[in-house]
């Protein structure tokens, strides 16, 4: 999956994606231990930061994680975490100048 993001993010996006890859294992551990507070916090943060890094899909998954934890519904949680992992495994980034038409 190719995602075009601002060239302003070139220095920080690799680290951001690396942090998210590490977070996948943490999310799995939170789910396994039913640590709902941590799951909710991570979902909330993902919802709040991912779109600013050009990662709308991750942001949407963060919204779903936070919402479902709030509703005490863990039915789809494993699926959301898998979607995050799949996204991170497939994402390719192209940096573009914000002034260009993209």
């Amino acid at each position: 999956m190719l995602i075009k993001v601002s060239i302003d993010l070139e220095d920080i996006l690799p680290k951001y994606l690396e942090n998210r890859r590490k977070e996948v294992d943490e999310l799995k551990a939170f789910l396994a231990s039913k640590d709902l507070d941590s799951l909710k916090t991570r979902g909330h943060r993902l919802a709040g930061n991912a779109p600013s890094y050009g990662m709308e899909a991750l942001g949407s998954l963060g919204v779903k994680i936070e919402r479902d934890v709030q509703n005490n519904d863990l039915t789809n949680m494993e699926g959301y975490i898998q979607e995050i992992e799949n996204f991170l495994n497939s994402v390719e980034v192209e940096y573009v100048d914000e002034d260009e038409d993209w």
Partner: protein
Amino acid sequence: MKKVLVLDDDVEIHEIVKAYAKGSFEVSCFGRIDQAMEELKQTQVDLVLLDIGLEDGDGIRFFAENKDFLAQRNCKILLLSGEKSLSKKLEAFHLGAVDYVVKPFEPLELIARVRANLASEEQRQEWYVKKDIRFNLESGTVFLEEEGELNEVPLSPIEFKLMMFFAKNEGRAFTRTQLLDKVWGETLHVSERTVDQHVSKLRKKVKSQFFEIRTSRALGYRFTALK
């Protein structure tokens, strides 16, 4: 260069603000309220980007509890939050926030808002604004904003000085002697009744929709928000 403090428990927000702020303003980032307070006490910070949902507390509460401290340092607050509700925004603006940005934000827009607020501070130095009361510091004149229009209030120089003193010390009570010292100066020999006469004139002339000069029993006078 202007200084901006980011108080947010998400380090990814720190990184993105730092990346986009390059060259525009200095950025220092903190994840905890106590760390940020320490920095605010030691450094002149022009604006705080304040997250509402902090791990160690509520950003709005932090703002409310430190409002006077921040105002005394001319430090502005721009709130960041995933909370989109109007009531939360109004609460923030009621406290005196200069802006409220909903997460996720577009980084360029956030930086533009910060820059606009920092710039407006420089432009506004000619003016001191207290809601509907506007003091022009250069001309020594006062204007009242009424239904979108600015109307000049004719004040004598000493009335202007007294009004300005009250406005800058909202909520604090002053005895007549203190007002004479602070406003008239110690060298002038005027009676305490002079203060009463000038306060009486100000009450008649400056009819703010938000503030009044209240008589504080045994103390003197207090400029305070209308109940």
